[in-house]
């Protein structure tokens, strides 16, 4: 019952309280910040999932960039609806993850981490080189998402006709985030989640009880990259542009840090981690040239004293994957 109450409070907060606060305070720039947090947390959720099979993934930026480009190309060149390009971007990223994952997921520990770190750079360079991605100029003036209506009933309005597309993006991002984390929660508590945990703890023992570990690894990595692709595609749509530098190695590192900060043992860790990390950086803006110094020192202190993440403080209303 406490769990459902927590969920209700959370939904009320993001869908009603936050917009009400923005209207009251007149700070509509908050929409953009919070939308970014929601989308980045979706990509971070993917990274968290690869942590769940015992792999340190510093390559989510690559899949976010792939997703952003696929959606942008489908919308601008093929004239496809953004809402159709969104799942396709995720699926394309997942397909790339399967092809790349089969060889590299055999690696463990720091070796996998290093290879995944290179991926972002590889995708950036590929985007610079290919004609379809338009090189360094990137893809610009992507139209805003169109509407969806069935039998004259408008499900999603055309964003271009809206008075406040920022609010619309905020809602869309929040809905996506809620769906993502609901699916993650379900997944972690289903059989696949149990198998992931067994692999995280001992791959040899897992294979001895009949788990096809290479298959599960690839499945999980492709789900992770699907989430990266979705997050990236939505980001591109908000910015209305994609460049090879839209997602960089630093972004990949941040996705990973979000998971660490929130807590690797908690499904909702990446959500909290992204929020704190994103706002933490902005709050330290006042410090000017000391911003990075203070930021990194705080991160080190946090990881020293809360190695299991912020959620190990057991905030009310937040539920962990394993208690």
């Amino acid at each position, binding site marked *: 019952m406490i769990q459902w109450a927590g969920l209700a409070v959370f939904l009320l907060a993001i869908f009603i309280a936050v917009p009400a606060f923005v209207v009251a305070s007149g700070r509509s720039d908050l929409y953009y910040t919070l939308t970014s947090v929601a989308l980045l947390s979706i990509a971070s959720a993917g990274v968290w999932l690869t942590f769940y099979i015992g792999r340190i993934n510093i390559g989510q930026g690559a899949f976010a960039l792939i997703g952003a480009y696929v959606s942008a190309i489908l919308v601008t060149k093929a004239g496809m609806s953004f809402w159709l390009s969104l799942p396709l971007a995720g699926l394309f990223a997942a397909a790339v993850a399967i092809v790349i994952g089969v060889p590299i997921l055999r690696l463990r520990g720091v070796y996998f981490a290093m290879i995944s770190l290179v991926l972002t750079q590889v995708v950036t360079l590929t985007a610079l080189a290919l004609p379809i991605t338009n090189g360094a100029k990137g893809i610009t003036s992507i139209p805003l998402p169109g509407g969806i209506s069935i039998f004259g009933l408008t499900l999603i309005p055309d964003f271009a006709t809206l008075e406040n597309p920022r609010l619309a993006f905020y809602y869309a991002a929040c809905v996506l985030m809620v769906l993502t984390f609901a699916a993650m929660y379900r997944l972690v508590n289903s*059989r696949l989640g149990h198998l992931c*945990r*067994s692999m995280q703890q001992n791959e*040899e*023992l897992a*294979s001895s*009880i*009949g788990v096809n*570990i290479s298959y599960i690894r690839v*499945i999980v990595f492709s789900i992770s990259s699907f989430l990266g692709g979705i997050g990236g595609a939505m980001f591109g749509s908000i910015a209305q542009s994609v460049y090879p530098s839209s997602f960089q190695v630093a972004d990949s590192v941040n996705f990973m840090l979000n998971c660490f900060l929130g807590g690797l043992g908690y499904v909702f860790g990446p959500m909290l981690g992204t929020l704190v990390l994103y706002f933490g950086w902005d709050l330290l803006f006042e410090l000017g040239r000391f911003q990075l110094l203070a930021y990194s020192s705080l991160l080190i202190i946090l990881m020293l004293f809360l190695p299991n993440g912020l959620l190990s403080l057991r905030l009310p209303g937040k539920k962990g994957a394993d208690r």
Partner: protein
Amino acid sequence: MSHLLEVRHVTRKFGGLTANSDISFNVNENEILSVIGPNGAGKSTLFKMISSFLPTTTGEVLFKGERISNLKPHVVARKGVVRTFQETTIFKSMTVRESIIVAQHLRARASLAGYFWGSRMAHEDVDSFGRYADDLIEFLGMTEIANEQASNLPQGNLRALGIAIGLATDPKVLLLDEPFAGMNHDETMKMVNLVRKVRDDRGVTVLLVEHDMPAVMNISDRIVVLNFGEMIAEGTPAEIQNNEKVIEAYLGSADDEIGI
């Protein structure tokens, strides 16, 4: 009597070193067969080849006439040949019951997507996993520690947990890796009885690799002896105790280990 498991001319080389040289023996249904030998005799290597954790250089292992060597471990497990590990290889942050539930992977009928959506078959599976886990926990006398986290368990219980995880897969042949290592006399006898019970009550054929001579002599129907990668003897405990080659091999390494 039918041969359940056949090891046929198995050889394994690591570079210039021959760890196993032309090993052949059969395991009969429902027997307890031990592989013994001094340190470095190649017992563990043989064990890994039977469970396909290591490919053979030449030769093959057959289970019910089907080749099970040079495959993937999970494929061999699916066929019914499951190995256990020494005590450090467990699911550390799971409880005993959780470990046994996860280990029933091969008994799952619903697909992974079915579990995600919560299909009827998945619900039935989950119920059946729980019942089977409780049965097994009772069978192994682990009721008191069922909800204890594995990392908190003492060594003796970890060994039993390892066997429980192996048994949860419902194997035909269970390969036990040094189940008595580091145990005192009482613990060893408890484990001997447990292994017997597994064979008698569950109809599981047991192949074990072991150092502890008194325990091996006590528990085994037949024994295979390895020395420097070669098989030097095969027979009942009584035959092995009086085999000159075996005595020589052991006297060459450590007299008191033989315990006869």
